[in-house]
Every structure is written in C-alpha cells, then in structure tokens.
C-alpha cells in the first residue's frame, strides 16, 4: 500500500510529538491537516486551540493559531469570524474544555449559528491535568477524582453535549465519530471534511465529536483503548450523524 499524502503541508515538519503513545489527538491532528489541504483552506485558516493536552497544537499545525483560555475557544472563534468573515475558523477542544468550563460558550456559539467548526475530542477524562473526571466520564469509570468509579448520585450522568447543541436550529451539522481503528479513522476524516465544507459553503455551525483514546489515563494499551471505545464508550455515546440541516440552511439563504 502507498500512502497518498505522506506529510500534509499544514503539518509542521521535524517536530517530535508530545502526545502519549496511542493518543487520539495526534491522529485527529493529522486528519485535520489533511482536510485543510484537500479543501484548500489552510492559507486562510485560524485554529483556536484549547487549554488541555492540545494546548501545544501550534507546534504541529502549520497554520495561524490562537490559544484560548480554558473553555473560551468558541467565544474567541466568534470574535475572529465576526471580525474577519473571510477567514476559515475552527476550534479544537477537549471534553473538559468544551462541556465543563466552556459549556456556556459552546451552547451560545452554537445557538447563534456562528459560521465556525468545532472539533470536539471526547476522551472521557481530563488528560492534561492527570486523569480527573470529565463531564463525559462514564458511570462506574475510575478516574483520579472518582477513585471508586463515577456514581450518578454524586457526580451526575455523562453529559451528551453534542446531542444538546444538535437540537439548535443554528447548528447545520453535528456528527459523532470515533478513532477506534481504520474504519473509524476514515469516517472521522469524512465527518471533518463535511464540517469544514459546511463553513466553506457558509451554511452555519458544525461540530464533530470524536471519541478518542487516552491510553495513559485509561490505563490501557493502545489496542485495548480502541476496543474500549468500541465496546464501552460508543454504547454511551453512539456513533452517527446527530443532525444535518445543511439543505435547510441553504434554502433559508
């Protein structure tokens, strides 16, 4: 087999990744870089990267980048896009960033139908700070702040924020995918391509939730992490298109 594009142009050369072995961030980074190239938007793109393991994403993406305060990515992206509608703007956020501290910004940017894309990495934990509970942590899942496993009584239930924003009329496209093997990775690329195209076509807000392995904090090897996504995580967070209003948005214009 030959690799079609061995090194996407919007991925920096000669950098050593800081992500743990088997981490999903690196996989999604590569996908994003490929899609930026294939849709030819990298030259006018700005990525807002989060506080979280992807805080160093600017070491890898060879496009203009703005770091965000924890959770505020979609507010910053709003400011960029409204100020410069000709730019292609997307955020890249973890589940703590997007669905805990940044919930209000997530909800309201989606509800305003901002013309941005959101890449939402759901790894069910806070990776960067050492594996604490996230809003997405599964019931019974052990984390450093749920040492006996998450209980609904104390910590509530896993938060399905993408399903929530998918109900908003301003959201043009929402899909949940998983990097849990070659098929899942291909589907993730298709979903991100669709999301990016949605912004290029001026059809509104799109969000792609990616179930993504964090082998370090799950205390699994990378193969078992893939399997855990398929067997456990995807049962709580089913894969699929959550909403597709692109036609409707186009008709509305």
């Amino acid at each position, binding site marked *: 087999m030959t690799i079609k594009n061995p090194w996407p142009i919007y991925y920096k050369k000669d950098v050593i990744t800081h992500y743990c072995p088997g981490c999903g961030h690196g996989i999604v980074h590569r996908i994003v870089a490929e899609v930026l190239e294939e849709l030819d938007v990298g030259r*006018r793109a700005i990525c807002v990267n989060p506080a979280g393991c992807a*805080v160093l994403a600017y070491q890898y993406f*060879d496009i203009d980048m703005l770091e965000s305060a924890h959770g505020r990515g979609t*507010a910053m992206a709003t*400011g960029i896009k*409204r*100020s410069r509608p000709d730019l292609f703007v997307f955020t890249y956020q973890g589940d703590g960033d997007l669905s805990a501290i940044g919930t209000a910004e997530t909800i*309201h940017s989606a509800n305003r139908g901002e013309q941005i894309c959101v890449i939402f990495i759901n790894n069910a934990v806070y990776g960067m700070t050492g594996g604490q509970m996230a809003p997405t942590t599964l019931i019974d899942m052990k984390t450093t702040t749920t040492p006996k496993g998450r209980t609904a009584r104390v910590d509530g239930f896993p938060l399905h924020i993408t399903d929530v924003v998918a109900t908003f009329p301003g959201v043009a496209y929402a899909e949940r995918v998983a990097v849990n093997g070659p098929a899942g990775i291909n589907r993730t690329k298709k979903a991100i391509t669709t999301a990016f195209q949605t912004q290029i076509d001026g059809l509104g807000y799109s969000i792609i939730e990616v179930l993504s392995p964090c082998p370090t904090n799950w205390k699994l090897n990378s193969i078992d992490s893939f399997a855990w996504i398929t067997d456990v995580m995807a049962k709580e967070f089913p894969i699929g298109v959550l909403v597709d209003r692109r036609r409707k948005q186009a008709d509305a214009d």
Partner: protein
Amino acid sequence: MSKVFMSGNHTFAEAAIRAGCRCYFGYPITPQNELGEYMAANMANVGGVFIQSESETAAINMVIGAASTGARAMTSSSSPGVSLKQEGISFLAGFELPAVIVNVMRGGPGLGNIAPAQGDYFQATRGGGHGDYRTPVFAPSSVQEAADLTAIAFDVADRYRTPVMILADGMLGQIREPVVFPDPIGELPEKEWALKGRGDGPSRYMASLILDALEMEKHNWKLVRKYEEIAKNEVRCEQFMLDDAEIVAIAYGTTARIAKGAINRLRKDNIPVGLLRPISLWPFPKNEIIDLTKRVRKFIVFEMSTGQMLEDVLLAVQGRAEVQFHGRPGGVVPTPIEFSRILYREYQILQKGRNGASHS
C-alpha cells in the same frame, strides 16, 4: 463637528466608533447599559459588529478573538461584570493584544448597588487578573473627556499592544453634557502582527503558555520594559489652582468634579486650596505629587471608596507631607459642601499649627 448633548455612556460608544472600533461585545449591566445599546443601534451603520454575549466572560474572549485579527475591539461593563473579565484581560496582556475595556463602576462588593462608586481602583490599577502585568487606566471626569480619552485609549492600546481600561462611574455614565467629537479617523495602518491566515507566508501563533520558566521570566521582563515606556510617556493629570495652594486635594473622575466645586467655593473666600486630578491612574502621576511635596504640607485624598488611590498617594508622598483621607464608599455621592468643610477644617488646623510654630 458641532456640539451635541449626550450621556457619558453614549459618548464612550460614539467616540469608540469614531476611533475605528468595529467590534463591540458586551453583556447588560447597570449603570452602563446605554453604551451597549448605542453600539447595537449604530455598529451596523458603519459595517461593524455588535454581539450581546452570553456573559462578560464570553464578551472579553470575543474581544480577544477580534483583536487577534487586528481589529479595534471593545467591551464595557460595570464592576461585577468587570470581575468576570479579569481572566481575559490577563490573556490580552500575555498575548500583547490591544483592546479597550470600559468599567462604569458601581457600589460593591458583591452585587452591591447601581449607584456611582470608585471601589474598583485596586482591581483596575494592579492588573486585576492573574499574573505579572499592568493595564493603563484612564479616568475621565466629564463627558467631553470621556470622548477624548476613548480615542486616546485606542491609540495607546495599539501603540503598546496592551489592553487599556477606562475607569468611569455610574455618575459619569448617566449624566448628559455638551460634547464635541473628533472627526472619525480614516484607515488604520495594518497591524503586521495580526493573525489573518498564513497565506503564502509562514504560520503564526499567539500563545500565552510558556512552559520554560526562564523563557516565561524573559517574557515578564519584556512586558515590564513596555510598562516602563508607558509609565514614561502616558502619565496624564490636571493641575487645578495649584500655584499658591497650601492644601492640595487629590481626586479622580466624578469625585474630582465635586472637589473642584468645593475648591471654587473656598477660593471665593481666598482659601488657598487646589486640586491634582490624576487622569491616568496607572501610570500614576507620582512625579507630579513628589514635586508638590517640595512646598505643600498637606494633601487630602477624596474618593468614593474606603481608600484605594490613597495608597498610591502615600507611596508618592513617602512621608514628606501629611496625607488625609475622606471617602464615601458604597454608592454615596459626596457634595461640594461636604468636601469644602473638610478642606476648610484642614486649612484651619494648618494655620493654627503655623501660628503656634511662629510664636514659639
């Protein structure tokens, strides 16, 4: 342009638009709602952006986003809302991004009330968010000055790539006065550091994260050098009837107007009192006060707080003269008569001390 009659809040907005501000983000809070409302009504006419954000936190982060593209961006709020903006202001300082933040102060702490107050001086002048930074702070005391300082604030923000705060209070926000606006500025020079997509050039990033402590220290000292430049060039203050003044009041914003009223009364009776009015609160007109200590024995600090600018005055005076304080916190607006009584009493004490000294 001819004179118009306008409130302070509307004036901040109109002056910002004339200064080329094309992005305003804010969340309603009294006593500054008219500022956002004016932006909502007028931004679209100049092709600008107005968003009523979901919170003050979101607003300041929208400002960061817009500022990162080189736009002149602004947000405004009142005390509780400005507390929520502090994380974002710290990021602006770290990123070295220009922006203008208007705080129309009200009584506090907590929700406090909606009456004019000056309790946010520490927060404004000490870099109210986390980390080692400063924010230039300008304090207008009339509607005309609100217009003038808004234009200056945007220029200073761009020149030094720093967030700038305008510190007003509910009184200035609400009063209506005649004001003459400067003509709208033309095209602004392009900001070569702004993010605009890499195009065919190298990519750029703005990050405040500097994990290497030695590099972070370097960044901190770099910011300090910038703050030293600002301290050298951007001090502004008004000297009112100081030439022969034996007692000098120090007050800013609305309180300074009230103090002027008191001084005008006393001057009718030939009582030699004057006013030093800091217009820039940071950088503080420290040298001007030090100069005065060469001949003035007594200063009286008036504030609508329990004594915050007082500390800057004490730092400048360094024991070389007597410093008295009179404050009305919590939204109480003092009167000129109240101030004039205090000034007169202190003048009498000074006289007595002098006569006593000459007899001995």
